[in-house]
C-alpha cells in the first residue's frame, strides 16, 4: 500500500483501468477465440449437414432414376423417362459436390468413390432396362428387372450412404460437444472475467477513491488555504498594482517634467557655452584694455605727483601770503592803536584837537576796514590752505589709490588671464555639460518610454491582479465545493 500510495493519480487510474482493461481483454480474447471456434464448429456442422443433404439427394436422385426407368419399363411411355433423365445430370453434380465437400476426409472420399461405382452400376442397370424395354419390350425388361441386380446395387449404395451419413452424424455430435464445451468455457470465462473485472474495478475504485479522497481532500484543503492566502495576496497585489500604477503615472509626469528641465538645461548649457566663448573673447579684449589702462594709470600717477608738488608749492605760497598778511594785520592793528591814542590825545587837547580827532577817526576807520579785510583775506587764505591741504591729502590718497589701482590692475590683468583660462575651461565644461545633458535628455526619454511601458504594465498588472483576485475567489469557492464533494465533514 505504501508503494501504491506513492503513485500518482494518473498512474493509479492507469493501473486500475489497465487491470480492468486487461481483464476485459482476456475475456474478449478468450470469447473471441471461443466465438471463432463456435463459428468454425458451426461452419463444420453446416458442412456436415450439406454432406448429409447431398447424400440424401444422391439417394433421392438415384431413386428418381430408378423410378423413371421402372415407369418407362412398365408403361413404355417416354414421358416417364423424364425423372431418369433429370437425375442423370443431378447425380453427377451431386457426386461432384460430395467429392468437393469431403475433399479433406479420405475415408469419405473412399466411400464416395464406392458410391460412384455403385451409382454408375445402378445407372447402367437402369439404362439397360430402358434399352431392353425400348428394344425388346416389356417382358425382357421385366425379366431383367427381376434379376435384382439393381436392388443389390441400391442396397450397397444405401449401405455406403448410411456409412457416410453415420460418419457425418458422428462428426456432428463431436462438433456439437466441442461447441457446447467452448460455449461453456466462454460463459465461464465471461462470468469469471466479469466478476474479476468488476471486483478489480471496485477494489481499485475504492482504493483510488479512498486515497484520492484523503490526498485530494488534503490537497484541496491546502488549495483552499493557499487560495485564501492567494486571495489576500491578490488583494494586496491589486492594491499594490493600483498604487504602483498611480505612482508610475506620477513618475511618468515627473520624468516628463524632468525631460523638459533637461532640455531647458541643455539649452541653458548651450547658451552658457556661447556666453563663455563671448566672455573668453571679452576677457582677451579686456586684458589688452587692462594693459592700456595700466599705462594710463602710470601717466595719471606721474600727473598726480606733479599735482602734489604744485599743491605743496601752493601751500607754501599761501603760508608766505599769510605771513605777509600777518604783517599787514599787525600794521592795521598798530594803526588802529595809534588812531585810538591820537583820539585820546585829541580829546586831551581840547577844542584844538577836534580836527585832529576827526582825522584820527578816519585813520582808525581805515585801519578797522583794513583789519576787517585782512581778516577776510586771512579767512580766504586759510580756506585756500585748507583746500590745498585737503587737495594734497586727497591727491596723496589718490596717488596711493592710483598705486593701489595700479597694483590691482596688475592683479586684474593676472585675474583676466586666469579668467580667460577659466572661461576656456568653463566653455569646455559647458560643452561637456551640454553634451551630457543631451545624452541625459535622450536617456530620460528612453526612461520615459520605459516608464510609460511600466505604467502600462502596471495597469495591466492591476487588471490582471483583479482578474487573479476574481479567479482566486472562484478557486476558493471551487475548493470549498470540491472539498464539500470529497469530504463533506471537512467542508463545513
Amino acid at each position, binding site marked *: 500500500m505504501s508503494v501504491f500510495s506513492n503513485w500518482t493519480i494518473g498512474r493509479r487510474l492507469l493501473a486500475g483501468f489497465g487491470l480492468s482493461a486487461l481483464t476485459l481483454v482476456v475475456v474478449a480474447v478468450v470469447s473471441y477465440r471461443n466465438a471463432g471456434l463456435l463459428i468454425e464448429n458451426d461452419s463444420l456442422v453446416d458442412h456436415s449437414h450439406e454432406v448429409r443433404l447431398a447424400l440424401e439427394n444422391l439417394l433421392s436422385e438415384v431413386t428418381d432414376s430408378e423410378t423413371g426407368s421402372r415407369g418407362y419399363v412398365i408403361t413404355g411411355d417416354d414421358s416417364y423417362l423424364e425423372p431418369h433423365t433429370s437425375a442423370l445430370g443431378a447425380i453427377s453434380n451431386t457426386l461432384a459436390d460430395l467429392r468437393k465437400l469431403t475433399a479433406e476426409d479420405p475415408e469419405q472420399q473412399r466411400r464416395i468413390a464406392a458410391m460412384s461405382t455403385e451409382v454408375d452400376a445402378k445407372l447402367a442397370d437402369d439404362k439397360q432396362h430402358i434399352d431392353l424395354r425400348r428394344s425388346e419390350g416389356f417382358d425382357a425388361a421385366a425379366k431383367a428387372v427381376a434379376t435384382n441386380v439393381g436392388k443389390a446395387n441400391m442396397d450397397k449404395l444405401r449401405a455406403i450412404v448410411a456409412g457416410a451419413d453415420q460418419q457425418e452424424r458422428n462428426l456432428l455430435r463431436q462438433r456439437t460437444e466441442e461447441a457446447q464445451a467452448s460455449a461453456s468455457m466462454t460463459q465461464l470465462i465471461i462470468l469469471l472475467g466479469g466478476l474479476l473485472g468488476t471486483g478489480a474495478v471496485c477494489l481499485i475504485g475504492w482504493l483510488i477513491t479512498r486515497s484520492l479522497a484523503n490526498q485530494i481532500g488534503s490537497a484541496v484543503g491546502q488549495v483552499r488555504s493557499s487560495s485564501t492566502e492567494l486571495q489576500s495576496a491578490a488583494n494586496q497585489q491589486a492594491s499594490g498594482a493600483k498604487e504602483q500604477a498611480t505612482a508610475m503615472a506620477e513618475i511618468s509626469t515627473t520624468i516628463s517634467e524632468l525631460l523638459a528641465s533637461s532640455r531647458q538645461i541643455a539649452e541653458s548649457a548651450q547658451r552658457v557655452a556661447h556666453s563663455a566663448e563671448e566672455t573668453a573673447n571679452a576677457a582677451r579684449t579686456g586684458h589688452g584694455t587692462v594693459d592700456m589702462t595700466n599705462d594710463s594709470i602710470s601717466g595719471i600717477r606721474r600727473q598726480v605727483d606733479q599735482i602734489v608738488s604744485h599743491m605743496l608749492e601752493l601751500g607754501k605760497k599761501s603760508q608766505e601770503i599769510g605771513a605777509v598778511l600777518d604783517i599787514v594785520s599787525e600794521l592795521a592793528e598798530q594803526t588802529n592803536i595809534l588812531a*585810538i591814542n591820537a583820539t*585820546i590825545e585829541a580829546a586831551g587837547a581840547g577844542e584844538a584837537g577836534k580836527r585832529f580827532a576827526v*582825522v584820527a577817526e578816519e585813520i582808525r576807520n581805515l585801519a578797522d576796514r583794513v583789519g576787517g579785510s585782512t581778516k577776510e583775506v586771512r579767512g580766504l587764505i586759510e580756506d585756500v590752505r585748507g583746500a590745498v591741504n585737503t587737495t594734497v591729502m586727497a591727491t596723496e590718497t589718490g596717488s596711493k589709490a592710483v598705486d593701489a589701482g595700479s597694483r590691482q590692475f596688475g592683479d586684474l590683468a593676472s585675474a583676466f588671464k586666469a579668467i580667460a583660462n577659466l572661461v576656456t575651461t568653463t566653455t569646455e565644461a559647458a560643452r561637456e555639460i551640454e553634451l551630457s545633458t543631451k545624452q541625459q535628455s535622450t536617456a530620460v526619454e528612453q526612461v520615459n518610454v520605459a516608464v510609460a511601458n511600466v505604467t502600462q504594465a502596471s495597469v495591466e498588472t492591476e487588471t490582471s491582479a483583479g482578474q487573479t483576485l476574481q479567479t482566486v475567489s472562484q478557486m476558493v469557492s471551487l475548493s470549498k465545493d470540491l472539498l464539500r464533494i470529497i469530504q463533506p465533514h471537512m467542508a463545513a
Partner: protein
Amino acid sequence: MTGAPASLADRVSELRSAFDRAFAAPLRTETTTKIDLVAIRVGSESCAIRLAEIRSLFADSAITRIPGGNTALLGIANSRGELVPAYRLRTLLGLSGTGDSRWLVIAAAAPVAFACEAFEGHLRASAESILPRQSSGRMHEFATEFVRSGDVVRPIIALSSVIAALGTMPDAAASMVTQE
C-alpha cells in the same frame, strides 16, 4: 574762484574811495554830544570803557613780572617811559576765561595798566544810548551802565571804581598806586 578776486577788488576799490573821501570831504563839526568808548573783551565778556578814562592803549607791551601774592598783578609795564603796574582785568572783575591778555589799557586817573584779552574797536555812542545796568555780583560794582552796539550789549567798566578797589588790596603795587 572767480568771485573772490572780484570781491577783493571791490573791497580794495571801496577802501580806496573811502580813504579818498576822507580827505576830500570838508571838516564836519559835531552837532550832537557823543561819548567815545573803547570796545574790549575781558575774558569771554564783551565790555566797553569810556575813552575819557583811558590815557593810552598798547598791545604786546613787555611786562616784567614781580614777586607778590596778588594773582591779578601781572607785573610792571613801560608806558612811554613811565613804569606802571599791570593788572589782569578779568581777574579783578571776577570773570572767567582763558587766553593771553596782550592788550594794555592805561588809565587816565592813575598810572595803572589793565590787561584785557582783545581790542574790539572804537564806539561813539549818544548819551541816551547809555543806560543803567541792573545786575548783581562783583561785576556790578565796576559796571553800573551798559551800551548797545548792534546786537551786542556791553557793560561799561568804570576804571575809576576799579582803581578805587585796588586801594583796598593789601598788595605792594596797589599801595604804590594809592601812594601816588
